[in-house]
């Protein structure tokens, strides 16, 4: 009993210590870990659906990446702020409601200011709700950490997701359509007979490129999945 209270006291003291530097070493790690070593897509295998579906061209991919970063960061903050008031049994529904609210916001903004892009992304904007990265971060991080740390964690995971889908989109658009951001790059350098690869525009190209990307990335970080 006495040791327990002692531990509790120590924990309280630890919390009250002079506030941590705004970008301490630990906090930098919270941001940088998901970028490479603990990447949500290549290592944790989360959020694959939208990673593949929108990556035919760079522009929708960039829009999607921004939308997902926005949703992750804000849902992380909101859940982290109210984490002590969420009853454990209904937490999934509470989290889903918060995410759905943010996604509705994103889709209404897209519809109002960027209607062409909204039509291209179609149902996949709505599918950010079921993007496992968002749910995963809420469950694993925001439910147990303070708002500021949760923002950093959201940024880290969001950008970890963003750079992977941008790389996939880069190769798919370059090889599949011969362009980048709809700019015909091969015609510009005088190679107008560049053979575009239909497989890359198709879903199969997405699987292949992501598979190879995962291989390279895991080879570099030395992560091995046990069977």
């Amino acid at each position, binding site marked *: 009993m006495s040791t327990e209270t002692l531990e509790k006291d120590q924990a309280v003291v630890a919390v009250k210590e002079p506030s941590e530097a705004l970008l301490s070493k630990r906090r930098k790690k919270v941001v940088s870990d998901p970028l490479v070593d603990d990447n949500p897509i290549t290592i944790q295998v989360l959020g694959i659906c939208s990673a593949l579906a929108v990556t035919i061209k760079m522009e929708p991919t960039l829009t999607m990446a921004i939308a997902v970063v926005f949703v992750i960061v804000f849902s992380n903050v909101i859940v982290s702020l109210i984490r002590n008031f969420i009853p454990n049994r209904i937490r999934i529904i509470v989290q*889903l*409601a918060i995410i759905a609210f943010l996604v509705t916001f994103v889709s209404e903004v897209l519809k109002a200011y960027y209607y062409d892009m909204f039509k291209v992304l179609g149902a996949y904007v709505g599918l950010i*709700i079921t993007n496992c990265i968002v749910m995963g971060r809420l469950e694993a991080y925001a439910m147990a950490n303070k708002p500021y740390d949760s923002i950093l964690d959201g940024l880290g995971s969001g950008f970890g997701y963003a750079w992977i889908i941008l790389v996939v989109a880069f190769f798919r658009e370059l090889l599949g359509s011969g362009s980048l951001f709809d700019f015909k790059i091969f015609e510009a350098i005088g190679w107008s007979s560049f053979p575009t690869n239909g497989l890359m525009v198709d879903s199969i190209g997405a*699987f292949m490129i992501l598979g*190879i990307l995962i291989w390279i990335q895991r080879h570099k970080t030395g992560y091995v999945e046990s069977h």
Partner: protein
Amino acid sequence: MESINIIIRGIFIDNMIFTYFLGMCSFLAVSKKVSTAFGLGMAVIFVLTITVPINWLIQENILKEGALAWMGSAYETIDLTFMQYIVFIAVIAAMVQLVEMVIEKASPALYGSLGIFLPLIAVNCAILGSALFMVQRDYTLVEATAYGFGSGSGFFFAIIALAAIREKLKYSNVPDGLKGLGLTMLITGLMGLAFKSFIGIVI
């Protein structure tokens, strides 16, 4: 006849996994053994066949522009489409919870095999995705039910096939970095290529 066509399309041509990449998370995570893949696949078929028609009814009678006309002429101009995401996901989460409780009471054996997968399904993109596609495609109620069943079956066959391949892969010598997810992605790509040969089937 149209419904059968929709089911066939859902399984072979517009396959949830190979064409739309929906439900990939659970597709990759739960495909290590055929028996568990079977359980998840059945649960997905079950939940999709129930939630797609329910969401159809809600969409047609409440959310659509002018759908509230049955409440009186004052409501004719109301457009609640922006509520779509929240309502659909709430319906799915609630239905999954309900189905779980009903199965637990009615058939403990089935609950034993499906039980752990049901909560997972609430956040399966395939369920929400089907509901959103159903809205885009203007189905009737019967067609929507057929679509739910068809796309669920498509997911079922895909995950069983992948699990069968992965069970065999256990004994092969794979480069370290490619183990697990990397190789699974490549296999899924090849399977998608095979499914391409079904394009054009019409009954």
